[in-house]
């Protein structure tokens, strides 16, 4: 399993290929890539992502261990960026490898739900009107109850 919390951009296609090449014995690989979405008004200048160095890695590693045990994953990958990003930039990706697709999909969704609400990242949107912190959605918290 590999986890990287980094400011640098990365190539999700290259990461997916590398992940697949290393997942021997897998019958299914699911990948998810998250991008910086523009604001409803289309005026997003940048997205600043703050995190809690140390806790971020510990929290995500714990989620990955849980996912691996629960869905018998062959491998898992999480890459999450922080710092200043632009609309359309890749923020993060998750990849899971399992014997069958049901496990790979479920584990990827589980990791996404937990990353949203339990990994210490905070998004700040910068528009011509100023900067504002993105509020957590009740639906993101509610999504955890299904696990």
């Amino acid at each position, binding site marked *: 399993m590999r986890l990287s919390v980094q400011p640098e951009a990365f190539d999700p296609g290259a990461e997916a290929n590398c992940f697949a090449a290393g997942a021997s014995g897998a019958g299914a690989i699911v990948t998810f890539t*998250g991008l910086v979405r523009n604001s409803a008004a289309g005026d997003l200048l940048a997205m600043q992502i*703050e995190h*809690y160095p*140390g*806790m971020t890695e*510990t*929290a995500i590693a714990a989620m990955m261990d849980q996912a691996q045990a629960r869905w018998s994953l062959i491998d898992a990958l999480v890459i*999450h960026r922080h710092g200043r990003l632009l609309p359309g930039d890749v*923020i*993060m990706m998750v990849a899971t490898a399992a014997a069958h697709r049901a496990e790979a999909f479920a584990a990827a969704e589980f990791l*996404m739900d937990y*990353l*949203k*609400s*339990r*990994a*210490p*990242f*905070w*998004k*700040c949107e910068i528009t011509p009107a100023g900067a504002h*912190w*993105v*509020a*957590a959605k009740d639906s993101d*918290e509610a999504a955890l109850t299904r696990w």
Partner: protein
Amino acid sequence: MIDVLYFAWLRERIGVPREQVETSAATVADLVAELVAREERYALAFADRASLRVALDQQLAGFDAPLAGVREVAFFPPMTGG
């Protein structure tokens, strides 16, 4: 001495990302009460406790959690990762 960290809008309201606090508070809630009594900026930052989360030594905890043996306390708004 305990290290206290603040993130996101909480950090902006308090004005520092981290500080060392001399405290004998027994719980997180007691520490918050001490900070709030200290200066207006803390009172404003901690006005809505329900909108805040806390971590003790980098593990999520509750406001009623004891501080004995804890080296690092972090306060922050609900997380928005992914």
